[in-house]
């Protein structure tokens, strides 16, 4: 019979104490595993999300981190808006030479808690991170002229139960608090394949439709009656900077005056060719008010796929009434990447931030320390559990003195009994550590989907962190150290006294 077998029997004899001590250790290790894995996954997600297909985010002056959080992560509240004309500067104005592409983001609505983003179809034709492009898993991309079309992220589609052909009404506000009013319907024309980014949780609607919703233009908020621009104005706003625009964004099926357009939002081309609109009566229980008062009167819906919004006479919103919350910018080269933010920041209108820098800063200054603190607490739990091993073994020593003496009388050397007690401690540590490791991953399997749904960060039972490899050796070492004091007690057992010497 080996010393290992004797140690195992020793633990089994004290089954209750062994179990309780092992469970407390397992709980500690479980916490450490969870923190490590989540830390690794979050760090990986931050790193991955810091590696975006765009390198500059432009938005209203204010919180830099807030701009990144609500643009990249769909968290926090949106910052103020910048005029649409400012966005046009990236397409064909003073910033255009620095830019490969620029995508507008309009934020401020949600659907069942998932953020709604007003944007252009071109978003899904550029890389969302280096070398990775969006894929439409089902359906198609929204069309330029499909003002009320939407493409939905994979998680958002699942959570909201949306599929191609379904319709949904965004709610004003970024939180599903029941306070915001419902907007008009958008039709889901496509569902994105999972990207592993927060965009999986977002619903992307055509920016043209977004502007047509109540409260989404500057005039809506100011309470003034907007003037609709003529066709020329609106067409101009939709020109992308042709030289810098990727081929897939350039041109479409619509020819306008012999030039190609990057067709980011040409809803109602025919309509606004016909001048201003009359107020419509679409019966949605939702009054477009002033906006619709300026819509083209003889808008021909037959020429447009309004994706479930037939019967409305919306014309495009004039450029001066338009605003964007953020502009995603892919700069042309490293020099442009360095110069463009400076030029923007020197101006009074907007700020340019590097999402990668902000994300890394956030991670290093906020998220990282919090997770280290959690890890420290979890490690403390493990240390307390290790002290539990020590207490358990020390308490058992009184009852085991006779047992140790019997073994010594049978020829066991002091180092044999010392080894047996250390092995007991080691086994307890390894068993508790292994159980804790399994429990940790089981817990991740349980809470992972919840966390993924809430944060977009995918974590599951099979998520692993490299640091986990160190857990068992460290726990084994800690347990062995904890077992040293009782082992020394066993080592120093006075055999003659323990055997009940009557001398």
């Amino acid at each position, binding site marked *: *019979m080996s010393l290992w077998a004797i140690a195992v*029997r020793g633990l089994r*004899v004290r089954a209750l104490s062994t179990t309780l001590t092992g469970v407390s250790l397992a709980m500690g290790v479980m916490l450490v595993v969870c923190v490590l894995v989540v830390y690794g996954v979050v760090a990986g997600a931050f790193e991955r999300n810091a590696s975006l297909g765009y390198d500059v985010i432009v938005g209203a002056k204010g919180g830099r981190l807030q701009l990144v959080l609500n643009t990249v992560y769909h968290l926090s509240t949106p910052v103020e808006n910048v005029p649409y004309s400012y966005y046009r500067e990236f397409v064909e104005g003073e910033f255009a030479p620095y830019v490969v592409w620029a995508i507008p983001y309009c934020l401020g609505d949600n659907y069942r808690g998932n953020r709604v983003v007003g944007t252009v179809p071109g978003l899904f034709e550029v890389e969302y991170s280096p070398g990775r492009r969006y894929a439409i898993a089902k359906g198609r991309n929204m069309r330029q002229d499909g003002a009320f079309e939407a493409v939905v992220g994979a998680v958002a589609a699942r959570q909201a139960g949306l599929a191609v052909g379904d319709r949904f009404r965004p709610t004003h506000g970024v939180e599903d608090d029941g306070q915001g009013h419902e907007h008009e319907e958008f039709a889901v024309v496509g569902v994105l394949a999972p990207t592993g980014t927060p965009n999986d949780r977002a619903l992307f609607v055509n920016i043209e439709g977004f502007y047509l919703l109540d409260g989404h233009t500057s005039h809506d908020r100011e309470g003034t009656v907007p003037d609709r621009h003529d066709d020329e104005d609106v067409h101009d706003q939709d020109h992308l900077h042709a030289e810098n625009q990727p081929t897939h964004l350039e041109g479409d099926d619509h020819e306008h005056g012999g030039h190609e357009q990057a067709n980011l939002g040409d809803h109602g081309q025919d309509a606004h060719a016909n001048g201003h609109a009359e107020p419509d009566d679409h019966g949605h229980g939702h009054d477009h008010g002033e906006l619709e008062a300026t819509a083209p009167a003889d808008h021909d819906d037959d020429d447009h796929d309004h994706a479930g919004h037939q019967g409305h006479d919306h014309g495009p919103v004039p450029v001066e009434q338009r605003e964007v919350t953020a502009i995603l910018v892919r700069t042309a080269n490293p020099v442009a990447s360095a110069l463009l933010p400076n030029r923007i920041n020197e101006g009074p209108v907007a700020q340019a931030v590097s999402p990668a820098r902000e994300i890394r800063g956030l991670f290093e200054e906020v998220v990282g320390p919090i997770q280290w603190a959690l890890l420290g607490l979890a490690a403390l739990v493990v240390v307390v559990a290790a002290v539990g091993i020590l207490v358990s073994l020390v308490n058992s020593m009184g009852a085991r003195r006779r047992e140790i003496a*019997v073994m010594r*009388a049978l020829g066991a050397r002091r180092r044999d009994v010392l080894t047996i007690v250390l092995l007991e401690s080691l086994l307890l540590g390894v068993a508790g550590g292994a159980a804790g490791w399994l429990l940790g991953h089981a817990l991740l399997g349980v809470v992972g989907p919840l966390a993924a749904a809430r944060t977009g960060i995918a974590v599951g039972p099979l998520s692993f962190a490299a640091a986990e490899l160190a857990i068992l050796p460290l726990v084994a070492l800690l347990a062995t150290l904890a077992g040293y004091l009782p082992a020394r007690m066993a080592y120093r057992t006075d055999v003659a006294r323990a055997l009940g*010497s*009557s*001398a």
Partner: protein
Amino acid sequence: MDVVQLVGVKKAHVDPAGGRCAVLDVERWVLGAGEQAALLGHSGSGKTTLLHVIAGLTLPDEGSVRVADCELTGLDEPARDRFRAGAIGYVYQTLNLLDGFSSLENVLLGMTFGGRPPDERRARDLLDRVGLGHRLHHRPEALSVGERQRVAVARALLARPTVMLADEPTAHLDPVNQRQVIDLIRSACREESVALLLVTHAPDVAEAFERVESIESFNRAAKGIPAKEVA
């Protein structure tokens, strides 16, 4: 040929007041090969200390202790432990067995620390010979006190020792079991040609032995000293 030989052995304990209290003072005492002796003495007369000295569990302050031609006082503790594992079988009053181990495993423990591979067949044979062949896998709590002592006897014999030391092995047994255990120990030692030294305070236990001695007869530290004055 003597298998145990004590010459000029002295051993004293330190009392709580810091004074030294003599426990053993033996000029010469021997036990022959295969011999069986019963040692009588009242509580505190040094019987158990004598066994511990012979087993190498404790060293005398003075004198020579030779067991199976090995001078124990010349060995360091690990060497004495290893020697004890191979040459000496030990049976105590009670609590001989380790909880959590079956009868068979408790017997096999008798060879675990001796550096030799455990002989399970012999362990089974010995348990069979002590009448426990049908209780190989019972744990101590499932055995009677008499049965536990039989397991202890089998364990003490497993490593084919030269000497068996039995310290009040029948102290907690009824008269019938006392007789059975004593007969078992004696017959087993005889069959295995193992010398036996049994200490007891009960004359009726000792009467079965050919050689019966009072410890006071050769331990000067115990002569005329009331038990309570001996540590």
